């Protein structure tokens, strides 16, 4: 059991008195000595004297609906309503370390663990009631917050059975779960509890959180990546009352008593930096990727002998696909508040990985990890590691230097310019058809960055600039998965060239790697179908053996009214708008969701602009805890990835990122939004799988295939911008 070193007085200070707009949650006052050991029921769940249940989740709600889903899962096992549950998320002093809220694991891993804790608690409550009711377990039921005789009569409430005391029980992996046939709450589209406050300005986002005596800070990022700070002209901000600089090595910040003064100071401050020019520039990006030293080569998947089969193949096709660096582009720039003292630190952050980052912060602050507490508060949506942790590190370093709590709010150019990016990907694919028009052999070679130079994970900006040691944070994610086609191909090889570096600091951006990989694999599958003069759907179905995969593809085809024919469709040479349809399929990570996606597009011949007019998705994630929350995530995956596919590409010169606002980094807007038709397949007897990523994976491929169907030209570089489409149309005409 982990001992919480933070003194109770300090803990309460952090939660209660100093805080504006942050209510003291039930169960919190007693939590100072609470276990966070993730094999203990008490780490996840506490029952108060009044019978109210508090859940402690290491995974957090990033706007996904986890906050209602986890309540549903636990309430189901405990025989209570979700309104009886208080949920504490991502506070390192109170919640168990369930790993980062990433990789679509919030419900699939975090929720499942909490469900098992609740099931274990349910068994314990029954045992306690047995002794007092003198009935065997088989004659007791758990309902409405009490254990009572199945035959009727008075029961004993949870508060009476265990209220205010620990369970002191190890999580029982064998504790029986409520049978799906008896579900009261799981599988229902219950409304998310946080929306009424979010929609009326009453919800406390990290941006809204304040501490007494808090200073407002801004980090001053250099004009070039890797620049060294030569001189700071403090006189340049002397006219701004209260404004002063904080310098730690090459880390530079300004603080002031008011936020506006801090902004003015950040703008006015004159500093001299070196001018390194180490970036390749985005116009040379893909040549730079191919020219990067390879650290290691891996074979992700291999069957037969693709190399030999392809070497002698008559019907050989080859192509290269390119996926650009992209930003999380969170709508609210990152923000954090840090209170760092000599004996410990408290940091309020929207990080998806407070537990993971606690030792990171402890190291660069020179503190023992047990004295560092990171508390999750909602931020603007992040889709992986955006700037949340960097803003927190900025605040922490400034707070440590000044001995005062500091709030750092990034500006728009900080977020677009300096959030760690989804890295660029290059995939070379080649394949051969057999005489029957099926795929005989396939090879993928993917060029993916191993990680940031010098660190096997994305380093935080502030300690790196300050020259402070920091251990690994998050990695760029499982970018190598789904590089292998999901079809029965006798000779197949998917190989990864792990690159030693990538131009911009990489991170895990929603469905890391899998969107670009599926873009290559599923577009190239379409290229092969076209070469075989086959209908793209039939071509896939003849090679697909996974029944759940076949089911989603058939559902999409039925909903779309798919007419079997090869692509491209008939192209009207006189039409101003060319229309097409495309389909793509993914078995996410080869282990999770089955998703099929059909897209219809309209392409303007005059401008080259692609508009997705209709998206039809069939989605199988096993058991659905909250179908509307699932649907919301599927919709978001599709719309955000349409945006990434059509509009988004981080640009940079030799010094720094140049796409630093919403004009230079445009995203999808309301006029671009297609009709969405989503079919959710419920499999209540299967394990629940995450829904935060999977439906993103096939989007780019479905669009690429639909554009090919419309204009008869294959676009292999994302985003599919008007200029690129127009060039493709011109090349076709020529």
């Amino acid at each position, binding site marked *: 059991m982990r001992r919480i070193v933070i003194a109770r007085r300090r803990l309460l200070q952090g939660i209660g008195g100093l805080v*504006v*707009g942050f209510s003291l949650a039930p169960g919190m006052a007693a939590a100072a000595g609470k276990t966070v050991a993730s094999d203990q029921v008490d780490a996840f769940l506490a029952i108060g004297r009044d019978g109210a249940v508090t859940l402690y989740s290491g995974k957090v709600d*990033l*706007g*996904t609906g986890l906050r209602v889903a986890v309540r549903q899962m636990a309430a189901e096992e405990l025989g209570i309503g979700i309104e009886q549950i208080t949920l504490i998320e991502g506070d390192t002093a109170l919640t168990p370390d369930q790993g980062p809220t990433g990789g679509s694991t919030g419900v699939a891993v975090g929720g499942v663990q909490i469900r098992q804790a609740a099931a274990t608690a349910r068994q314990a409550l029954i045992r306690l009631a047995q002794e007092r009711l003198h009935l065997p377990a088989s004659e007791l039921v758990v309902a409405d917050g009490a254990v009572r005789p199945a035959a009727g009569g008075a029961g004993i409430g949870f508060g009476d059975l265990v209220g205010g005391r620990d369970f002191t029980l190890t999580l029982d992996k064998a504790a029986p779960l409520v049978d799906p046939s008896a579900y009261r709450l799981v599988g229902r589209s219950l*409304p*998310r509890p*946080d*929306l*009424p*406050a*979010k*929609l*009326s*300005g*009453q*919800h*406390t*986002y990290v*941006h*809204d959180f304040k501490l007494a005596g808090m200073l407002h800070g801004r980090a001053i990022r250099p004009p070039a990546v890797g620049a060294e700070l030569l001189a700071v002209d403090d006189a340049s901000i002397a006219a701004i*009352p209260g404004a002063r600089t904080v310098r730690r090595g090459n880390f530079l910040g300004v603080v002031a008593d*008011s*936020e*506006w*003064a801090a902004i*003015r100071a950040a703008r006015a401050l004159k500093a001299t930096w070196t001018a390194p020019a180490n970036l390749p520039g985005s116009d040379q990006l893909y040549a730079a990727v191919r020219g990067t030293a390879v650290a290691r080569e891996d074979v992700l998947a291999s069957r037969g002998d693709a190399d030999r089969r392809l070497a002698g193949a008559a019907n050989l096709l080859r192509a290269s696909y390119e996926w650009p660096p992209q930003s999380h*582009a*969170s*709508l*609210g*720039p990152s923000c954090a508040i840090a209170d760092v003292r000599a004996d410990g630190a408290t940091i309020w952050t929207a990080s998806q990985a407070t537990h993971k980052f606690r030792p990171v912060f402890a190291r660069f602050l020179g503190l023992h990890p047990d004295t560092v507490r990171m508390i999750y508060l*909602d*931020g*603007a*949506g992040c889709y992986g590691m955006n700037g949340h942790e960097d803003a927190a590190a900025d605040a922490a370093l400034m707070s440590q230097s000044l001995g005062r709590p500091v709030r750092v*709010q990034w*500006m*728009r150019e900080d977020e677009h310019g300096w959030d760690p990016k989804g890295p660029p990907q290059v995939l070379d694919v080649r394949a051969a058809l057999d005489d029957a028009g099926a795929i005989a052999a396939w090879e993928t070679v993917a060029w993916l960055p191993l990680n940031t130079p010098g660190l096997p994970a994305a380093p935080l900006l502030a300690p790196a600039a300050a020259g402070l040691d920091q251990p690994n944070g998050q990695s760029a994610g499982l970018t190598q998965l789904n590089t292998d086609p999901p079809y029965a191909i006798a000779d197949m090889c998917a190989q990864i060239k792990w690159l030693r570096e990538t131009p911009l600091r990489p991170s895990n951006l929603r469905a890391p790697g899998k969107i670009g990989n599926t873009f290559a694999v599923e577009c190239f599958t379409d290229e092969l179908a076209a070469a075989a003069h086959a209908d793209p759907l039939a071509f896939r179905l003849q090679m697909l053996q996974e029944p759940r995969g076949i089911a989603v593809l058939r559902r999409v085809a039925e909903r779309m009214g798919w007419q079997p024919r090869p692509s491209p469709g008939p192209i009207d040479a006189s039409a101003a708008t060319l229309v097409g349809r495309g389909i793509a399929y993914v078995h996410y990570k080869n282990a999770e969701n089955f998703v099929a996606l059909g897209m219809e597009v309209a392409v303007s011949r005059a401008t080259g602009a692609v508009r997705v007019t209709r998206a039809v998705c069939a989605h199988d994630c096993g058991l659905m805890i909250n179908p*509307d*929350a699932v649907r*919301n*995530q599927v*919709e*978001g*995956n*599709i*719309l*955000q990835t349409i*945006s990434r596919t059509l509009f988004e590409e981080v640009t940079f010169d030799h010094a720094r990122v140049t796409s630093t*606002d*919403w*004009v230079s980094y445009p*995203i*999808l*807007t*309301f*006029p671009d*939004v297609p009709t*969405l038709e989503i079919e959710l397949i419920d499999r209540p007897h299967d394990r629940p799988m995450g829904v935060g990523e999977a439906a993103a994976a096939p989007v780019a491929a479905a669009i690429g295939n639909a554009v090919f169907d419309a204009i008869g030209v294959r676009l292999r570089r994302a985003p599919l911008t008007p200029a690129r489409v127009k060039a493709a149309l011109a090349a076709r005409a020529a």
Partner: protein
Amino acid sequence: MVESITLEVNGTSQTLDVADPDMPLLYALRNDLGLHGPKFGCGLGQCGACTVLIDGAATRSCLIPLGKVGQRAITTLEGLGTPEQPHKLQAAFIAEQATQCGYCANGMIMAAAALLARNWHPSEQQVRDELAGNLCRCGAHARILRAVLRAAENR
């Protein structure tokens, strides 16, 4: 240097001591008046997260200097309704669960409120066009459209 500025916010007169009248209204609302409905998104007038109503017109509070607001009536998200007594738009957003992270929701609701005030029964296309300058990063657009149309029907 400090001067007093009186603002009309959500039907109440509020007097602030202001060091710089060029400070955008957003910072006064969020930091001086504790109104967290309007959000800082870009400070450039590009995303809409900071939208408030000024005399009924949807206005980017990150751009308008405090000294230029004058006596005009400011309405923030808090001024529309509360969790207990939501405005029709807030109720419609809840009914449609038209939110993911919710950071853009302020701008969506305030822009839609301005639209519905002058056009009580907009077409879907009119809502799309009206909200074209309000960005949502999570992809809640389809639900937001439905919510605005639902609110219009319930007027």
